């Protein structure tokens, strides 16, 4: 089983996010980058499949600040090869990133012919589209998202995939391979890797660097961001006053407005 995992670094929201002077984008100099949460699950799922049925796992990521630590940690967790893709500018949209990554997957020896391409189901900055279906389209592969279970057949020709529907209902699908999956949650939480192991890997293993061909294409995202703002957080709750009946009724109105009733 040949598994590719696509990892993406996204702005870390634990830090304050700052808007760039142009008022339309994030000030990327200011913040830090972190691995997108569901990509971590995609990586874990890939490792679980490898442990169960053998095979190789390759992790790919676009160059970004702090991506090296993530790739070394992936190696320390048991990934066989990690590839850093250089070329695209930091701040590329999801579809732009998908295009570059798909290009590399299609042209780089050792990356073509994967049975499974896994990535997180959704990232916090997927404004112009999601990674998994974008990749699927670029690679002409089938796609299934919001996957919480993945059990490939030993023939590597098909897999059972469980997709999460509302209210905890799971949908069990059969998917012909090769295919792209957007992983919502791995079967187990992403494993911890001791810092000593990562430090050892930094000394003994390396990250392969591959450049994506520069494209003259106009922006693939096709979006025009007019403005980016930070909604002001309220420091204190708005207190609803009155009798239990009155406050309950007022609360109902608020919930209804938000589509929660």
């Amino acid at each position, binding site marked *: 089983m040949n598994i590719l995992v696509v990892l993406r670094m996204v702005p870390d929201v*634990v*830090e*304050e996010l700052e808007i760039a002077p142009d008022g339309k984008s994030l000030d990327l100099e200011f913040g830090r980058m*972190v691995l997108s949460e569901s990509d971590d699950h995609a990586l874990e799922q890939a490792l679980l499949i490898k442990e169960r049925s053998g095979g190789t796992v390759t992790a790919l990521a676009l160059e970004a600040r702090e991506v090296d630590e993530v790739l070394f940690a992936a190696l320390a967790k048991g990934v066989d090869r990690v590839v850093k893709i250089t070329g695209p500018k930091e701040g590329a949209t999801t579809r732009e990133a998908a295009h570059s990554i798909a290009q590399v997957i299609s042209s780089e020896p050792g990356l073509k012919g994967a049975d499974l391409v896994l990535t997180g189901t959704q990232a916090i900055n997927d404004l112009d589209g999601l990674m998994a279906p974008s990749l699927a389209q670029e690679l002409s592969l089938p796609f299934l998202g919001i996957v919480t279970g993945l059990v490939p057949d030993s023939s590597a020709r098909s897999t059972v995939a469980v997709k999460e529907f509302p209210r905890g209902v799971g949908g069990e699908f059969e998917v012909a391979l090769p295919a792209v999956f957007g992983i919502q949650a791995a079967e*187990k*939480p992403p*494993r*911890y890797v*001791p*810092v*000593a*192991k*990562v*430090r*050892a890997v930094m000394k003994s293993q390396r990250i392969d660097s591959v450049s994506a061909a520069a494209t003259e294409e106009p922006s693939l995202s096709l979006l025009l961001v007019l403005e980016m703002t930070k909604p002001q957080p309220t420091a204190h709750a708005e207190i609803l006053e009155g009798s239990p009946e009155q406050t309950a009724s007022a609360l109902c109105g608020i919930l209804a407005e938000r589509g929660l009733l």
Partner: protein
Amino acid sequence: MGGATLSVGRSSPEITLENLLQHPKGQELLTCIQCGLCAGTCPYGEVMAYPPRRIIAMLRAGMLESVLTSDSLLACVACYSCMAKCPRNIQLTEVLLPLVKEQVFLRLAELPAELHKALDNTLRYGNPMAESPRKRAAWIKTVDFPIRILAEDPRPVDVLWFVECQNSYHPRGQDVSRATAKLFHVLGIDFAILGNEEKCAGECARLLGEKGLFETLTDYIMVVFSKYRFNRIVTSGAHAYDAFKHPYTAAGFKYEVAHTTPFFADYLEQLKSRLTRKLPYAITYHDSCCLGRHNGFYEQPRWLLQAIPGVKLLEMPHNRISATCCGGGGGGMWLDTYYKTKGYERLSERRVKEAVSTGADVIAVSCPYEISRFEDALKVLGYEKKVMVRDVTELLSEAMEV
């Protein structure tokens, strides 16, 4: 898998679990008389499958692997009880246990979720709470006099105050920091903090067996210290104090270091004249493992408390060298749910019951973990309206009229 290493001075030959018995430090283990005092005094003795006595026996018998593949040692809260009571003075908590736990840690199939998060956060943000490093010094804005941050004003200073994570970010910890700052201020001490450059000192990671994380933090902090000129380091973190005093020496730490409680006790005469407000509290002091058993500071906090007018000091049956741990060390701070699933009693609840039995209305503490742990235990046991938890510095500050 590589063996565990203990650097006793980074230039000396590496000690591993394998060569431990051949190394002088390790040969002390051979003097163990298998008396079992360690197991008997361990707060989790009844659930600890491998107390130090048994680990040493297994080591001698070449059967250490069973110890290393068990998760039993996650119950060790690194309270130093075994080490303090050992009649042969074997360096159990300081040497043996971290070495063994390092190997256990590498073999654990799955880390309990809360602990996993705390370690990830500590590596990434320099604190276990996933708080932004940029907000570490935000609390100083709530103090009504300026507090110097060395990165902004690097002139030499008398005291570099190492604040610690809980004291920087947790609301109750910030209460302690405000009180501590007030004491420094009132005593006219020239002090400064590292602000956002400060990160976790890593002692709990080390005691848990996450040696790589400890070393990463040590390397970082030693570089930060080297940038500034100061006479001494004073910290309100009991575990941070322990780290600097002991394992950091291997990384070249040579600075004078003190914990705030014994530090302020040195200024007792000066403080006494300022403690003018009567606090009619019956206080029982909980000896912190790091300050007390490990470093011998039993009387200093008591002198400070007794200097407060109106205070009556009550002792718990387990006090000083016998004090029972709040359960926060060695990773215990993030293993409450894990212990609960195993059916272990929470040590903080056990200790709070003992405190309540003295009739005290205040539990005085000097380690940041103790405040949230005991306040939580009081709530769970239903005593939160009867008994409150206060740090020694908070009580001193409260006893000062402005």
